[in-house]
């Protein structure tokens, strides 16, 4: 991938700082926080299913002042290290920024995006438990949740160009990231990973976001799980990432994750149900 100009990087970075969270999680965080005795696990379950909230909280917690022995890679870990009250108040701060509008000028379907991200997150976590017991599986969940984060930033802050990319991918039946590179100058992998890097996310998380569309044969287990999960999600009809193509499974994922048939229809049904549950919370 060619080097990108400082202008492009500055533009991408500024955009993501302004990202508001998803409406349902904002509503839920506000509702839970009204009760002073709210349960930590309830807030965790909201934060870790909203890519914007999760990303912003990880950003704050991995700031240079807290060079913790292990980087904060999951919301549970953030509570163990920095305390529930701090995490809750960070979530409230993010909730106060506003909500992501349901419609954007790129016509990128945010609900379908969220379903896709949650689905990939759930599958990546399951795969992680099976192939890499030493890896924190919630790290794979977060990596899956955030792998396409760059697309939401594009939709919100560069909607015209992103719409052109979505349309081209659809009309020419090419992978969305290739259309993005042509039209926006870089793809969502770079967008997302640049932020992840700037925000000092742990290296495996940055790499999983950056390389998930590359035909790599080397990389971390986290990357392998996200690649494989992304591929599985596209053959199961659930959510939509904006890319019409099902690509070949990269060698890394094929070697590391083995036979994907091991993921049963029951597994997928359960993960879908969890993702759906989140889509429903707060909508009553």
């Amino acid at each position: 991938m060619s080097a990108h100009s400082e202008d492009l990087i500055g533009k991408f970075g500024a955009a993501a700082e302004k990202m508001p969270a998803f409406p349902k999680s904002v509503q839920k965080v506000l509702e839970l926080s009204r009760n002073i005795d709210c349960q930590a696990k309830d807030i965790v379950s909201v934060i870790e299913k909203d890519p914007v909230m999760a990303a912003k909280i990880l950003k704050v917690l991995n700031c240079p002042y807290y060079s913790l022995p292990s980087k904060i890679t999951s919301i549970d870990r953030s509570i163990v290290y920095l305390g529930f009250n701090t995490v809750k108040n960070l979530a409230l701060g993010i909730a106060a920024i506003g909500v992501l509008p349901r419609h954007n000028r790129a016509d990128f379907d945010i609900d379908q995006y969220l379903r896709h991200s949650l689905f990939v997150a759930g599958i990546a976590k399951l795969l992680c438990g099976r192939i890499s017991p030493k890896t924190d599986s919630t790290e794979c969940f977060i990596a899956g949740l955030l792998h396409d984060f760059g697309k939401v930033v594009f939709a919100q802050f560069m909607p015209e160009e992103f719409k052109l990319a979505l349309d081209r991918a659809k009309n020419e039946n090419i992978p969305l990231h290739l259309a993005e590179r042509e039209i926006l100058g870089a793809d969502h992998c770079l967008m997302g990973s640049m932020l992840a890097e700037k925000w000092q996310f742990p290296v495996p998380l940055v790499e999983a976001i950056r390389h998930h569309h590359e035909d790599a044969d080397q990389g971390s287990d986290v990357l392998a799980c996200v690649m494989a999960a992304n591929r599985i999600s596209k053959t199961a009809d659930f959510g939509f990432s904006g890319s019409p193509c099902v690509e070949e499974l990269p060698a890394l994922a094929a070697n590391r994750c083995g036979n994907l048939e091991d993921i049963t229809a029951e597994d997928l049904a359960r993960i879908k149900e969890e993702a759906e549950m989140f889509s429903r919370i707060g909508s009553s």
Partner: protein
Amino acid sequence: MKIKFWGVRGSIPVPGPKTVKYGGNTTCIEIRTDSGELVILDGGTGIFQLAQSLLGEMPVTANVFLSHSHWDHIHGLPFFVPLFVPGNRLRLHGAYDLVSGRGVEQVMDVQLQYSFFPIREAELKASIEYFTLTPGVPVEIGDATTVTPILLNHPVVNFGYRIDCNGKSVFFTGDHEPPYNIYSPEEAGYEEYRQILQEREAGILDAIRGVDVIIADSSYSDEEYAKKKGWGHGTFDTSIRLARDAGAKILYFTHHEPTRSDGDLERIFAEVLKKHPPEGLEYRLAREGDGMDF
């Protein structure tokens, strides 16, 4: 090294006949290094009396380390008299506040506002320097002393401090509640959370292992804790466990609950002694004016 307690109370100052023995001032501990440097742990109301004791030795350099920014640990700071006298130096150390996004300077800034205090920061005569710390990274005081912040658990970021001087050491927790599992055993996240907790606990113990003296937040009895879980404070039992696991020789219980009378405190202490015989670990109730030299 010398240790002296100037405030041992939690939450709010409680002067009066019921607290006359152990004292009603909020947290402030004076440490003198072997070469005489002044380290002050927390700036609760106890710091006012400490300041009075310093008037004869000015100009002073006060190395103040704040465990966290809750009022009871900072609200004596504006009354730290050396601040108003030219030639003195205040070196204020503390944590970065993740939620407000500000460093330790916030503590003075918030308190020294026109509506709340008559003197603005710009009007203070002493020189003030701020040091926002990173957990695990030691600060050197003089030639022979280091102060190492250790991230503990409270509703706001709280540092415990380990002070090492010529092979002697003391650890002060600030306010600390050992983190607990937020899932119940039958829930999916339980096991993973348990592992993170274990790793976290091991990290704390590694940082304080072999310390001579521990001064620990022991706000509650076990019965009281049941109703105050999540408030960010330890119990007599959690302090004993911490001190034993760290291999300490002396344990001071501090941050006494503000409604606790001297009599109540001694009653609870007697129960603790019965329930957990000291066996090589000496227990002491922190008391204003008391201290030790070692």
